């Protein structure tokens, strides 16, 4: 479970940025990220909390579609990126 105060940090081995999209290398895999994923990778290089990241994504992309809350949507995106090794999430209690 990802909490609002958990810190998200980008953990890619290399990144290539063109026109707001980011291509990342993680281990031996190269992945082209979505626009939202690209933004997360860009702004989380130095670490952001889920709350801070949600505020940032809201400012860049506006309200999420389908009435989802910004923080729920942020957690979902971060969870997906964590699964493929693009970000690391550190618990606020660690």
């Amino acid at each position, binding site marked *: 479970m990802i909490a609002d105060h958990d810190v998200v940090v980008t953990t890619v081995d*290399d990144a*290539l940025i*063109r026109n707001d999209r980011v*291509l990342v*290398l993680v281990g*031996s*895999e*190269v992945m*082209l990220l979505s626009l939202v994923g690209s933004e997360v990778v860009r702004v989380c290089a130095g670490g952001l909390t889920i709350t801070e990241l949600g505020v940032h994504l809201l400012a860049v992309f506006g309200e999420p579609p389908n009435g989802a809350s910004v923080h729920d949507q942020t957690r979902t995106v971060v969870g997906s990126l964590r699964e493929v090794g693009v970000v690391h999430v550190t618990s606020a209690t660690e």
Partner: protein
Amino acid sequence: MAWRSGIAFRVVLVSTRNSTSAAFAERLLRPALADTGIEAWSLRVTSAGLEDEQGASFNTDAEFMLRSLGGNPGGFRSRVLDHEIVDDADLILTMTRGERDAVIAAYPRARRRTFTLIEYIRLNDLVQPIAPLREHPLMLASARPQVEVTEDDDIVGPTELGPQAYNEMATTVADAVYQLAEAWIAMAPSRGPHRDPLGAARLLDAGADAEVVRLSAFGVAVDVQCTGDGGRALSRELNQAWSRCLRLEEEPAQVAVEALVHDDETLLRVARARGAIGANTVAHVMHALASAITVRAIDERAGEVIMLHAAGVALPDGRVVAFVAPSGTGKTTLSRTVGKMYGYVSDETVVISLDGSVTAYPKPLSVITGARPHKEQFGPDAEGLLAAPLELRLARVVLLNREPDHQGEPVLEPVDLLEGIAELAAQVSYLPRLAEPLRSLARSIESTGGLQRVTYAEAAELADLVPLLAAGAT
């Protein structure tokens, strides 16, 4: 996950309960690899289960069966698959499709390195990759839609089917792991630079009629020691087929390969167990050597240069067009055809320095003829391919898209850089070892005017496009 040459390729075999089929496969794959000369340090095989069995070991029936097939059941304790095991694995092989899907669902980042055992063997037969072993999973994953695996291909553990099934399961696993070990000959990681060039010379007794063929594989000095009854014939064949890669300078070898052609299966087994390429026909050894030489040269140059799995042809002024495609999808046919009109650079590996210069690798063309179970080697001279100029420079990288039903002229289209590199990455050897890997690759591609994709039906149709592509006038 570390990504270097000279370190082990790590395979994890997975079944629902570790102590059944996965453990069997682990304990049979290890001796099969040893029999084929793949050293234990270079390929580490372990197993794990999806369910917790509290450190179970083999039962008596399983031990008996394993021993009868040459496996060693000693010291086995089951373990449960977890994040650490998954992250540490280069390749995860499950016994059934359900287990594969369960692994991918629990560990999505492992999706492109998780296969069923039979699926992986079929994909390998289809693609026949010539690349370092650790690159195979990504290459095979992209070909996954071309191979169908059904319920009949699942290797179900014996407890699900009862004691009688031990025999069937064990036989299926033994056959599968033997095929796997055979396919991995010459592909396993090397120890890195300076592989003791004299080592091969002392492997056979001094009286053997060994002949050394000195080659240069894109700048890597390779000595092939031809031994056995068929040593002279092999040496002759190598000199012809590899004529454009013969090394004239007296520089010491960086890589030494022992190749043995002999009818005596016992002698072959002994030779293979010490790392030699051995078979009973010259053609078979020639096939394995093409892989061994290429893979070991790639290992040597990892991190120094960009190595594209591509066919390359050159204009008379040295501009090179590199056509990138997965194994088995048109590179050699293109080289065989277009190389009669433009200089033949390579049918397999186009080597690009970070300053844009290209090193030719005019190896024999490796062709699946259908007449033999392996690729046959055809020298570029015998095929009438033109020689490439000495000074070569990258002019364009093109993604090949052969569609046999494509109608009309070939279609060229620009490819978005990021999308193109995402597609291209699986066809670049040791990409992660380059300094700034993605940015280095992007700089090389952008300096030539960007990526193009060509959709075509017949390789001959591409000949007229070469000057156009090299000029960037698309």
